[in-house]
């Protein structure tokens, strides 16, 4: 097999395998955190910890929107329903 073909095949395969590893690693970390660390405790009565939106999709959309608009500088620390 010539060098160009080797680079083509092994290159694509390596990228695919590494991204499979990314998926597996992500899933493993999520499983581990869910099982052994769990959800962070909410501090009752903390200022600004009003009614939180619990819908994960909505939170994800807000986080993505803030990240995009602020070019990654802004972070969502709390979401309150007004």
């Amino acid at each position, binding site marked *: 097999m010539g060098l*160009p*073909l080797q*680079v083509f095949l092994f290159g*694509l395969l390596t990228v695919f395998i590494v*991204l499979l590893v990314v998926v597996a*690693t992500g899933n493993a970390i999520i499983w581990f*955190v869910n099982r052994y660390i769990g959800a962070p405790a909410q501090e009752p009565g903390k200022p600004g910890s009003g009614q939180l939106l619990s819908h994960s999709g909505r939170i994800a959309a807000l*986080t993505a929107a803030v*990240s995009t608009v602020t070019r990654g500088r802004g972070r969502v620390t709390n979401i309150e329903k007004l």
Partner: protein
Amino acid sequence: MSALERLYNITAFGDLWSGPGAILMLAIGIFLLFLGIRKKYEPLLLVPIGFGVILANLPGAGMGIVPEEMVRFEDGRYMNLVEIAGEYGIMNFLYYMLIKTGFLPPIIFLGVGALTDFGPMLRNLRLSLFGAAAQLGIFTVFFAAIAVGFTPQESGALGIIGGGDGPTAIYISIMLAPHMLGPIAIAAYSYMALVPVIIPPITRVMCSNKELSINMKNMDKLFPAKREIKNMTAVKIAFPIVLGIIVAFFVPTAVPLIGMLMFGNLIREIGLATGRLTEAATGPILNTATIFLGLTVGATMTTATFLDLRTLGIIFGGLVAFAISVAGGIIAVKIYNLFAKKKINPLVGATGLSAVPMASRVANEIALKHDSGNHLLQYCMASNISGVIGSAVAAGVLIAFLG
């Protein structure tokens, strides 16, 4: 008469007439400034690069980057930095210190990591795989470039433009084909800026209206995720540490890029405790690196290196690589949809190259045109961010094979 002649010799007009290519290069520099300032195409990069081109081609100024052979002795050793600065000026000093050593691209990756939120990717992990398909352009153009006469190293540097990642393209060029650095950097950043022009026609040709209307949120409702993430903060902190180590075992040559990306992301996710580091990485460090990267890359574009038919080949090849990468991601989604119940909008595949977050924003706008309630941004960001990892890994593979 002799006094006038002496006065004339002090000026640079004589050099200008003896090398008219410089005028064309100055025009190219001004054009890049126009694109950056007026058209707002990646101004943070194109403005320094454009000005670097102008500085390098000012007759008699001696600001252009000299070829490597001129700073290397016969026994293979390099001149030291003081000698380079004394002999060839400050721009060559900066170039050989910051670029030739491969220092700046990983530093920029540090800043990129500190600006990147892996959250959307972690919420949609399987979409990350499309970041692999979108690296198709890199390897296809690598193959084609060898066929038309580029060396394997040059072909690797040319193909990487298809990853849609400027720092990675620069890093690979430094490692494999430093003489092509200028045109490759220009092509990479120009095409990243032209994502809003490149992606829509490709999706129009390759996707039906029905496919572009696939609503991912509806799919999520029909086929909900098996588990939710209970503690995203903990996951986000663990992710860059674990992934950085694991990827290093698979592709050690990608560590300078991936390692810095993950470190940057880690200090971001830790939060307040490392807030000052994040601020430094995303502000002063990233901005300083960008200025020096742009100026020195621009200064590599002298008449001798840029006014060449191969430059046209690089610009054209880069565009083809970029287009194939977009198409590769779309094809991968289409193949996936053939077998899966939970369909994916092909636009998610189209954003598998880097160009974060521009590609995702463009894809989101296209989706909204087909269905005003179809917000794809967070899904596209998943493949878009994995594209950054994918192109850095592709770069590592190219260095391992060709370096």
